[in-house]
């Protein structure tokens, strides 16, 4: 069973919901090692996406949804996560251009392209205590699952689980990119907010795929 536009729009709705639910937690994380606006930024961004979702053409394909997310986040987030996630969704859209239905290879390609977009934009490396530390294991897990013949749902589940571990892995780190890098050793013991929102978004992707499978 492949994933289509309905999955993509469901993913947006689930993302908006989970970001709204975790707004305060993301703010709290960002207050510890940043400027305290990550929850607000992401919530503003996904609320704006949600408001535009009905404007999608009837024959929209998943890439159109991803592109809508991209441009809206870029225009509305107002913090580093805007260009970063925006570029991620833009590159993801590019990876599945023209495809109405996404198979396992496409799903893995979306995640890889998103991660590569964030690296292209922000130049973070593994261990810099950024969202990349959630994306990297997610991409690897997705690729491994796909190589083992996993379904689209299983690929996204694997990615979400790995992102959760990746987000947790940022806690003992010193930041070398982003605002948290100002803090030096004081960042140790705090989870990176962008890594946390990454896990929320990838969990929403898997949840939406599970709903699609169960319908």
């Amino acid at each position: 069973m492949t994933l289509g536009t309905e999955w993509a729009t469901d993913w947006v709705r689930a993302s908006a919901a989970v970001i709204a639910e975790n707004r305060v937690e993301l703010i709290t994380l960002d207050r510890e090692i940043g400027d305290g606006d990550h929850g607000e930024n992401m919530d503003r961004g996904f609320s704006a996406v949600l408001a535009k979702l009905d404007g999608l053409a009837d024959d929209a394909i998943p890439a159109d949804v991803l592109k809508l997310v991209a441009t809206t986040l870029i225009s509305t987030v107002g913090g580093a996560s805007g260009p970063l996630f925006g570029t991620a969704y833009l590159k993801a859209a590019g990876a599945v251009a023209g495809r109405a239905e996404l198979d396992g290879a496409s799903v893995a390609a979306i995640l890889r392209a998103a991660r590569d977009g964030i690296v292209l934009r922000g130049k973070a490396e593994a261990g810099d205590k950024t969202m990349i530390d959630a994306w990297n294991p997610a991409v690897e897990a997705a690729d491994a699952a796909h190589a083992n013949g996993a379904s689209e749902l299983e690929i996204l589940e694997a990615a979400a689980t790995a992102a959760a571990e990746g987000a947790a892995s940022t806690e003992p780190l010193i930041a070398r990119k982003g605002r948290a890098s100002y803090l030096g050793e004081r960042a140790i013991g705090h989870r990176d907010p962008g890594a946390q929102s990454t896990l929320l978004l990838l969990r929403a992707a898997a949840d939406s795929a599970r709903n699609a499978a169960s319908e």
Partner: protein
Amino acid sequence: MTVGLVFVSHSSKIAEGLVDLARQMAADVTLVAAGGTDDGGIGTSFDRVAAAIDEADSGDGVVVLCDLGSAILTAETALDFLDDDSRARVRLADAPLVEGGVAAAVAAQTGGDLDGVAAAAGTANASA
């Protein structure tokens, strides 16, 4: 015609104040403030930055100066959305915003070309 400048700051006050300051030594240069979020809060706005680059470009190119890292990310993203022709006329200066902004403004005022103005931003020092 001269190279135009865009000042990208997380604060609209900083960007606007820098236009006032640089204006003193660069009466004829197009200086455009792109500070704050769309609703005037602290942060950066893709739309403000993109519009500012467009406004500052008279054909001789634009040098963009930024404050913190997320301003740079926003500016780089704005560049990605330009067509190749326009993008070829834009430089992101690797320089501190205020000090580099004034130095770049003087370089533009005295007829510096695109790369010259971007380089001038980077040589800003505190002796001046």
